[in-house]
């Protein structure tokens, strides 16, 4: 079966996706278009993945992939999707059999990039990211904490990089947030998904009647970040490095608890806080 080669780039890390058959490759291109570019000899290819859609087998459920992570290798092992990726050989083989192969492809890319970004000194964070004039504000928390709500309330205050997953990478002493194609809500404007900018602040979310910022201890901030790093936070072999990396982020970026209600007023609090920090020389 002839494979179509697609170059997928996210946060400066490029993967060559060899997709077959042709119509599956076309569906992948349609879904991830803004992140797929020509082979222009620019960014090096960090990883190559052979992805084959073996045909929809309707008796197979579309349940989430079972993933087993051990060091540099990750195995996917269900009837709907199977394969292995290796960070050591920088290669993966993946066969899809479900009725939603593009959704399964997204799941594979989420896992691949969580590992790839971590291997390059960064982290993929479960958070909403909004690019305001002051920089990117990241809202972290588990499902239901209000990340997508915060994103949907930010129209006119900033551009949404994503409402579910954002990549952080270190660059010249700063942490840069990168948008991703991995969205939660369908209705949020996706123009910001290819944007990137320095992180201005990170906030854990509390739904409340009052709108205010509360300080967090460095330890509580590290704990909140670790809880927001999908895939890598489930690997015992990565735990110590993950603790150290989250500690690095907390040293460089203010992390606070944001109490907010279901309106955009939290932006006034964030901007006032930012202005006060600048006046104080922080």
């Amino acid at each position: 079966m002839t494979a179509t080669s697609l170059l997928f780039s996210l946060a400066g890390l490029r993967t060559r996706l060899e997709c077959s058959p042709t119509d599956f490759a076309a569906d992948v291109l349609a879904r991830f278009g803004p992140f797929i570019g020509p082979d222009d000899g620019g960014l090096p290819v960090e990883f190559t993945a052979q992805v084959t859609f073996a045909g929809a087998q309707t008796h197979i459920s579309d349940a989430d992939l079972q993933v087993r992570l051990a060091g540099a290798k990750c195995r996917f092992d269900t009837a709907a999707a199977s394969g292995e990726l290796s960070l050591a050989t920088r290669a993966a083989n993946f066969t899809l059999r479900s009725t939603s192969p593009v959704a399964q492809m997204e799941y594979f890319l989420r896992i691949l990039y969580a590992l790839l970004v971590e291997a390059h000194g960064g982290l993929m964070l479960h958070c909403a990211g909004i690019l305001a004039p002051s920089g990117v504000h990241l809202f972290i928390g588990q499902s239901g904490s209000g990340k997508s709500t915060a994103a949907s309330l930010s129209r006119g205050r900033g551009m949404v990089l994503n409402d579910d997953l954002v990549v952080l990478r270190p660059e010249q002493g700063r942490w840069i947030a990168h948008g991703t194609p991995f969205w939660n809500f369908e209705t949020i404007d996706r123009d910001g998904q290819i944007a990137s900018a320095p992180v201005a602040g990170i906030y854990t979310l509390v739904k409340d009647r009052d709108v205010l910022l509360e300080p967090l201890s460095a330890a509580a901030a590290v704990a909140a970040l670790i809880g927001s790093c999908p895939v890598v936070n489930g690997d015992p072999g990565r735990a110590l490095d993950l603790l150290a990396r989250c500690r690095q982020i907390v040293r460089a970026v203010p992390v606070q608890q944001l109490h907010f209600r279901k309106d955009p007023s939290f932006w006034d609090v964030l901007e006032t806080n930012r202005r006060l920090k600048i006046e104080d020389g922080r």
Partner: protein
Amino acid sequence: MQLTDVVAHTPGVVSRMVDGEAVLVDPKKGMVRVLNPAGARIWEMIDGRRTVAELAADIAAEYGIEALRAQADTTAFCEDLVRRDVLTVSK
């Protein structure tokens, strides 16, 4: 829990001190906890060989508190972490 029990860190739990508090992580269970400075100090002292009584005695000396209160607080702290699978106990 008895004062003569020996407590140890549960295998697989990883920790790091951050500004006097301890961040505990158990990746297989998806658990992340923060211990305040007093709890972090007890956590640091636990080595899998010392009894709860010995830990309490050191806490009493270090913080200048009464022995009985140190025993009660240390026992309660260890019991809580055993319930949360962060410490193991051997009789």
